[in-house]
C-alpha cells in the first residue's frame, strides 16, 4: 500500500519535473524574443515598458479584451492543429492559409444557400461543406506527395496562391459569388446558418453588442485538441501517422501504406484548416458573416510558428495559440499608448517581428541551448529537408 502510493507520488513528481523541463525552452524562447523586441523598441526611440504594458492591457485588460483575445485564439487553434497533424506524418503543411480560404468561401456559399432551413440543419450542413472543401484542397498536396513525391512545402505554397486567386476571382468585381454592393465580399450567410457568440450577441436575430466576438467554436477547438491528441497517441491510425513521420521506409517495411497515411494526414489537416475558415465566416460577428478577399491572410505562416512553439503537441497548441492571439490583439493598444510626443507611433508590425524571433528560438532551440548553456537531450526529430522532387 505504502509502496504503491510512494511510487505513484514519484510518478507525479517525475511528470511534473518532465513538464517543467519541457517548459523551460519555450519560456526562455519567449523571454529572449521579448528582450530582443525591447531592444528594437529602444533603438526605434520608444519606451519598451510602456509598449509592453499597452500590449498586455490590449490583450487582457478587461473582460471585453479577454473575450476578444480568446475569439482571436479560436481560428489559430484549428489551423495550428492542421499544421501539427501533417507534421506528425512528416509533412510540412504551409498550406493552411489556402485550405482556410477554400473552406471559408465554400461555407459562405453554402450558408447563403441553406440559410432558410432551420438552424439545426443549416449549421451542420454549412460547417460540413467548409470542412469537406478544406479537406479536398488539403488532399491535393497529400496525393501529389504520395504518388509523385512532389515536395509539399512548395506545392502547398503554390496552392495558397491559387486558392487566393480563385477566391479573389469569385468575390471580385462581377465574380459569381460577389456582392455587387460591397467590394470583394460575398453576401452575408443566412441567419440560421450562423453560430451564436458566447456572450452578448445573437447572430441569428442580429441583436446585442458585437464587442464580444468569442463564439462556440472556441470550445470545439478545445475539444479537437484533446481529440487529436487521443487520435495521435492512442489509436492505430495515430501510430501509423507517427511512424511514417519518423521514418517512412521503416513504416513501409512494417507494412504501413505510406501513401494512404500521407493522404489521410493532409486531408485531415485540410479539414481542420477549412473548419477554421468556416467558423470565422459562420461565427465571428467582427467579420459580418460573409467571406471577404483578405480573410485568412497570414494564418498559414502564423500557425506554423504556433505549431513549432507548441512542439507539435496538440494540447500545447492551446496556450501557444493564445500567446500569438494575445500579441495580435494587444498590438493596436501598444501602438496607441507608446505614441511619442511628436506623434510618431510604434508600428504594430513589431509584433510580427517578435513572433518571428519567438519561432527562431523555439524552432532552432540549438541557439537557445547555446545561449543559456543547456544540455541536449535525445528527442524524436522529424527531418523535413528531403529532396524536392524525389520519390523515396
Amino acid at each position: 500500500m505504502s509502496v504503491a502510493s510512494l511510487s505513484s507520488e514519484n510518478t507525479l513528481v517525475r511528470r511534473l519535473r518532465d513538464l517543467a523541463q519541457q517548459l523551460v525552452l519555450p519560456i526562455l524562447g519567449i523571454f529572449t524574443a521579448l528582450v530582443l523586441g525591447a531592444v528594437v523598441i529602444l533603438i526605434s526611440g520608444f519606451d519598451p515598458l510602456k509598449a509592453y504594458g499597452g500590449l498586455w492591457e490590449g490583450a487582457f485588460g478587461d473582460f471585453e479584451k479577454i473575450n476578444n483575445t480568446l475569439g482571436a485564439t479560436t481560428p489559430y487553434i484549428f489551423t495550428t492543429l492542421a499544421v501539427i497533424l501533417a507534421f506528425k506524418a512528416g509533412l510540412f503543411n504551409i498550406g493552411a492559409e489556402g485550405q482556410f480560404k477554400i473552406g471559408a468561401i465554400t461555407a459562405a456559399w453554402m450558408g447563403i444557400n441553406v440559410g432558410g432551413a432551420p438552424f439545426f440543419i443549416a449549421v451542420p450542413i454549412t460547417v460540413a461543406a467548409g470542412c469537406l472543401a478544406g479537406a479536398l484542397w488539403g488532399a491535393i498536396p497529400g496525393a501529389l506527395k504520395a504518388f509523385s513525391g512532389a515536395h509539399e512545402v512548395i506545392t502547398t505554397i503554390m496552392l495558397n496562391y491559387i486558392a487566393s486567386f480563385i477566391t479573389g476571382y469569385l468575390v471580385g468585381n462581377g465574380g459569381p459569388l460577389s456582392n455587387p454592393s460591397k467590394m470583394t465580399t460575398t453576401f452575408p450567410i443566412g441567419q440560421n446558418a450562423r453560430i451564436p457568440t458566447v456572450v452578448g450577441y445573437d447572430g441569428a436575430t442580429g441583436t446585442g453588442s458585437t464587442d464580444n466576438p468569442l463564439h462556440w467554436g472556441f470550445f470545439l477547438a478545445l475539444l479537437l485538441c484533446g481529440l487529436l491528441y487521443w487520435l495521435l497517441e492512442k489509436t492505430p491510425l495515430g501510430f501509423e501517422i507517427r511512424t511514417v513521420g519518423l521514418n517512412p521506409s521503416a513504416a513501409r517495411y512494417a507494412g504501413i501504406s505510406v501513401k494512404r497515411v500521407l493522404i489521410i494526414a493532409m486531408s485531415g489537416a485540410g479539414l481542420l484548416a477549412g473548419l477554421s475558415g468556416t467558423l470565422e465566416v459562420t461565427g465571428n460577428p467582427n467579420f459580418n458573416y460573409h467571406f471577404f478577399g483578405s480573410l485568412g491572410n497570414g494564418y498559414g505562416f502564423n500557425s506554423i510558428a504556433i505549431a513549432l512553439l507548441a512542439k507539435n503537441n496538440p494540447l500545447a497548441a492551446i496556450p501557444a495559440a493564445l500567446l500569438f492571439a494575445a500579441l495580435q490583439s494587444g498590438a493596436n493598444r501598444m501602438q496607441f499608448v507608446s505614441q511619442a510626443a511628436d506623434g510618431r507611433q510604434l508600428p504594430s508590425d513589431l509584433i510580427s517581428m517578435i513572433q518571428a524571433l519567438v519561432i527562431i528560438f523555439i524552432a532552432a532551440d540549438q541557439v537557445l541551448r547555446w545561449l543559456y548553456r543547456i544540455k541536449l537531450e535525445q528527442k524524436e526529430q522529424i527531418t523535413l529537408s528531403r529532396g524536392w522532387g524525389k520519390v523515396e
Partner: protein
Amino acid sequence: MAQLMADREEKLDSSRSMGGWLRNSRWPVIGLGILLLIFIWRLIASPQPVKDLLSLVTQTLAFATPITLGALSGTFSERSGVVNIAIEGMMLSGAFFGTLVGALTGNIWLGFVVAPFAGVALALIHAVLSIYFKVDQIISGTVINIFAFGLTSYLLSLIFSSARRNAETELLPGIKFNLDSSPFTIGLVSLLAIGLVFVSHYVLFYTSWGLRTRAVGENPKAADTAGVNVFLVRYVNVLVSGFLAGLAGTYFSLQVTGSFRENMTNGTGFIALAAMIFGRWTPLGSWGAALLFGFCQALDSALQSWYGQTLDWLHLITQSLPYVVTIIVLTGFFGRSRPPAAVGQPYSKQ
C-alpha cells in the same frame, strides 16, 4: 574527386545545355507551343503585330529577371548541399533595403549596391543556423521568411509611413528604345541576370571552386577526405545565394516601381525554387525555366491589356498558370530530375 563527379556528370551531361533541357522534356515545349499559338493568333488579329511581339518579349525578360536570379541563388546553395527556401525573404529584404538606402541618401546606386548585402545578411543567419547549429534547413528557411516579412513591414512603417517620409527612388537605367513612339525598356537588373546565368554556368562547371561545390553537395564526406573544407564551401555558397537573392529583390523596388510595398515579392522566391528544380539545378536550365514562367506572367499582363478586365476567368487562368506549372514540374511530369545527393543534410565531422 573529379572521378567522384564523373558518374553524376554523365547523368547531368545532357541537361547542361539548353538543347539538352529541351530534348529531355517535350512537355514544356508543347505547353509553350500552345501558348505561342494563342499568341500568334492574337498577333495576326493585331493591328500592330511587331509592337505586340516586342512588348511580349521585353515583358518576358522583365518578369523572368527575379525568377532567374532567384533560381541561380537556389542553385548555388543547393549544389553545395544546403536547401534554401528563404530566397523569398532574402529577395524581400533586398527590395526593401535597396529602397531604404536609395530613398534616404537620394542616391539609387548606393541602394543598388547595398541591397544584395541585405540578402547576404539573412543568408548568414541561414548558414549559421543550418550549418553550425544543424537546424532543419526548411524550418530555418521558413523562419527567415517570416522574419524578413516582419522586419521589412516594421521598418517600412517606422521609417517611412509613420514618419511620413518620402519612400520613392528613381529607377535604375536600362536599354531604352522606341517603336512607333511607344517606349520599350530592358532594365539593368535584367541584363545583369542574363550575364550572371553564364557566369554561374562557368563557375559551377569549369572552375575548381565549382567542382568543390558540387562535390560537397553530392558527397561531403568524400570531399572532406579529399581535402575540401566542407563548411567553408557551404558558407560561401549560401552567402553567394543570399547575394543573388538580394540582387533579385532590386528588380521589384529599384527597377520597376521605385518604391517598396509590403510583401511585394509575392511568392517569386518560391517560383524561383521551382525554376531551379525544373532546370535540374543548372544555371542554363534554370534560365530556360525562368523564361517560361516569365512568359506566363507576360502573357497574363498582355491579355489584360488586350482584352481589358472583361475576361476575368481568363485572367484567373493565366494568373494561376505559373503556380500550376510549378506544381506540375514538381510532380516530375516533365521528366524526373535528381537533386544533389546530400542536399538538406547537415554535415558533421565525426
